[in-house]
């Protein structure tokens, strides 16, 4: 009994709150139950403080950045990936690939011995092969795929880039070779296959769920090939991943990865200070100073391909009038926004593309001029202004660290030209859903690129197909603009592509379905013990190589 007590007291001494510890020890000894299990140290896992609940556990069905950050690179792999530095394609689940001369056939050789996750709900009997690849892609466009219509056949990314109309069929050449046959050669296809959305799912698991008649569970209880496997998700609380011991790439992933879902910015920072989080995404700019002064916390910074914008619902009057949009754009003091919202940690937008993109050409942006704005407004027939809603996203993202504050600044600027604004806020996932249904007048939102290809800024965001899939927050469908995008995709000549994208950028600023505001810089705060959590210029967060202390 004495040894028991001392052992318990030893445990309690690790806590500075000795009174509570001692009380606990008394309770423990009173119960007479002394743990015999092997003590597991807390350091065998990492807690990542995330800003929102994941909406799904299958990256194919969503484009929400906060969700992709959590699931894509942790649970899954793509066929190929893009090197963040050289921007060249790298082999992942495919070891090599060949493109036919006419560009209409792409053949992938697959990696052998890639194991899927073994979990409480599924035990795979085979490793990854061509069937899995064919299943994963055919779900996106093949109406005969048993899973195509699960969750209303909504694959926003692929539908907005038109991938569902591009792939004619996928052929299984042999067990480890697949060939994509296309209707036409398209220059951005490979980079779309390399995005976080184009993951490889288990066909065997899909058939298992189908045989159980529980297809809806396929996207909520995931099976992938990534470094971590799904364990538990408690809404508004946590997501728990365990290490995938048979991961094909390496065996040094941490035993446990927990996402602490903390929607409040300040709380996330506070949790960094109390060491309840090891890493946190998007620390707000005001707190960067305070964080970087601490020795035990490191703030990482990386250039990122993204844009924060103010989009108008161009189908809804009076926003269908380009003059009104112009008036609104001229009434905003962008310098003030850069200072008050980005604290100098952002680049004022000169186009929809960020300067680090190869197709970037600076445009004549609308500048702050209330008199001119008023003039345009009178011309458009609204000398006395009107009322409108301004939707501000409730979470902090790279491209807009504080949409609420930005909305308030815009609100006060608009009041100068006689426009009364009501700011609308919803919980993030509801917000995205309602924007998708185009319930807004105007919205402050943004886009973070998934690939370095400039098309990623146009097709998923502003094309007509994006309007139909609810991705286009400007609700803007312009055939001329779409033609430019198609022309840019139809050629592999970099010079020609650049030319078309220049025109597209110019047209956007002329028509102003949305006003690009700024390009944010990606920040991440981590405890000094954490290493291997690299920031990439595009795509979601990858924690495959993250480790803590001396592990």
């Amino acid at each position, binding site marked *: 009994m004495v040894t028991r007590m001392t052992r*318990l007291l030893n*445990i*309690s001494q690790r*806590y*500075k*709150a000795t009174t*509570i*510890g001692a*009380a*606990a020890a008394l309770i*423990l000894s009173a*119960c007479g*139950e*002394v*743990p*015999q*299990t*092997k*003590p*597991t140290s*807390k350091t*065998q*896992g990492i*807690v990542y403080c995330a800003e929102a609940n994941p909406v799904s556990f299958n990256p194919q069905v969503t484009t929400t950045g906060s969700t992709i950050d959590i699931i894509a690179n942790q649970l899954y792999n793509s066929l190929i990936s893009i090197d963040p530095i050289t921007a060249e394609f790298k082999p992942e689940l495919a070891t090599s690939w060949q493109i036919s001369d006419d560009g209409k056939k792409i053949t992938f050789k697959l990696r052998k011995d890639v194991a899927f996750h073994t979990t409480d709900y599924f035990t795979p009997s085979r490793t990854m092969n061509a069937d899995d690849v064919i299943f994963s892609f055919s779900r996106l466009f093949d109406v005969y795929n048993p899973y195509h219509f699960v969750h209303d056949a909504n694959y926003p990314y692929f539908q907005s880039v038109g991938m569902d109309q591009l792939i004619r069929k996928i052929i299984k050449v042999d067990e480890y070779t697949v060939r994509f046959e296309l209707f036409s050669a398209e220059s951005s296809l490979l980079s779309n296959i390399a995005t976080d959305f184009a993951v490889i799912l288990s066909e065997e698991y899909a058939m298992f769920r189908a045989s159980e008649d529980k297809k809806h569970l396929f996207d909520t209880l995931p099976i992938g090939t990534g470094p971590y496997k799904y*364990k*538990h998700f*408690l*809404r*508004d*609380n*946590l997501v*728990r991943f365990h290490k995938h011991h048979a991961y094909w790439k390496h065996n040094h992933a941490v035993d*446990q990865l*927990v996402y*602490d879902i*903390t929607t409040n910015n300040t*709380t996330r920072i*506070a*949790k960094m*200070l*109390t*060491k*309840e989080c090891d890493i946190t995404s998007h620390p707000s700019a005001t707190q960067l100073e305070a964080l970087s002064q601490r020795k035990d916390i490191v703030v990482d910074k990386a250039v990122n391909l993204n844009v924060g914008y103010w989009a108008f619902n161009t189908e809804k009057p009076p926003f269908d009038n380009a003059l009104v949009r112009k008036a609104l754009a001229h009434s905003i003091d962008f310098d003030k926004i850069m200072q008050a919202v980005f604290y100098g940690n952002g680049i004022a937008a000169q186009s929809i593309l960020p300067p680090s993109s190869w197709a970037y050409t600076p445009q004549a942006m609308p500048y702050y001029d209330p008199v001119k704005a008023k003039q345009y407004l009178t011309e458009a027939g609204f000398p006395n202004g009107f009322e409108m809603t301004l939707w501000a996203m409730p979470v902090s993202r790279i491209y807009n660290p504080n949409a609420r504050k930005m909305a308030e600044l815009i609100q006060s600027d608009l009041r100068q030209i006689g426009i009364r604004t009501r700011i609308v806020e*919803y*919980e993030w*996932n*509801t917000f995205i859903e309602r924007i998708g249904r185009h319930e807004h007048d105007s919205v402050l939102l943004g886009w973070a690129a998934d690939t370095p290809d400039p098309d990623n800024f146009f097709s998923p965001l502003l094309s007509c197909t994006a309007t139909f899939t609810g991705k286009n927050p400007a609700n803007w469908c312009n055939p001329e603009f779409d033609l430019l995008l198609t022309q840019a995709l139809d050629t592999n000549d970099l010079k020609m592509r650049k030319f078309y994208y220049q025109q597209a950028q110019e047209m956007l600023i002329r028509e102003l379905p949305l006003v690009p505001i700024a390009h944010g810089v990606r920040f991440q705060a981590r405890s000094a013990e954490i290493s291997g959590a690299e920031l990439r210029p595009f795509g979601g967060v990858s924690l495959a190589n993250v480790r803590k202390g001396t592990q």
Partner: protein
Amino acid sequence: MLDYLLRRLSLLLFMLFALTAFTFSLNYLFPGDLLTNFSGQINTSFSQSQLLEEKYRIEDNVIVQYSAFIGRLIEGDWGVSLSSGQTVSSHVALLLPATLELCFYALVVAILLGIPAGIITSAYHKKWPDKVISTLTLLGFSIPVFWLALLLIMVFCLGFGWFPMSGRIGLLYEIPAVTNFILLDIWLLDFPYGGQAFLDALHHLALPTIVLAMYPTTVLTRFTRDSMLNVLEQNYIKTARAKGLNRRQIILDHALRNALLPVIKQIGLQFSTLITLAMVTEVIFSWPGIGRWLIDSIYQRDYPAIQGGLLAVSMFVIFANMLADLTHSLLDPVSRNQSHGKV
């Protein structure tokens, strides 16, 4: 006693009727589609809507709808949360224990501190212990709970780093939920992680419990003090004193039992205040309880969740009050003879 019980039960039934009728009418009072408010299902197909209409008796009159509503409540079919797509009853089952746990510990702390403090103040009436404790209770009584919580977080979490500031347990401890009472669950699992998980859970409990216990502690202290002073004025106490009993004997043997009767009733009444305060505490300490969920649901206009949450919380408060009342009447024969039930 049986008569009294029956009177109480009829009152309970009436209150439950009022409560369910109110919750039911919320479906009509909330904006939006009636069927969506009832079921929590949006964008239903035509055949699904037909089934739902059948189930919710939308075509029939309000009385039939209400009785169908009661039937579903009893079956445990509380609809589906709009924002999570899971059943409201599963949310309540998961979250209510967390709130109850917090309230229970806070109440235990309040009783253990408040009643002795009240006895001390009355025993030393108008002497320095009375003055010190009375000043402190006045202070504790006046501090808003959210301010106290933030203050404690600033000093003990961010300043000294002694306590964690959120949740029920370190997230890396994996405790499968059985009863959803975290300490109980850890105990049932035979203290995994070498007892560290249990200590960690206590560690997480400390600050929210202190914050939540502050208000009931001060109320109980003041109430015990007043009640004791009242009893000490009585003639039989004077008689006891005249007989030469010392202060300890008078207070412990004669005054205490009578003085505690109204206090016991007060403990039961504290539950409703506690639940309200718990909501604030839960939001600040990110405690995964029903209060935080209810507040989130209100923000998200998740009508089925708001209804379910309200119903669960108020039903719990009614039952807790009833239980306190019964205990009180067991100890106090006089109250049994009241001819009318009281809320």
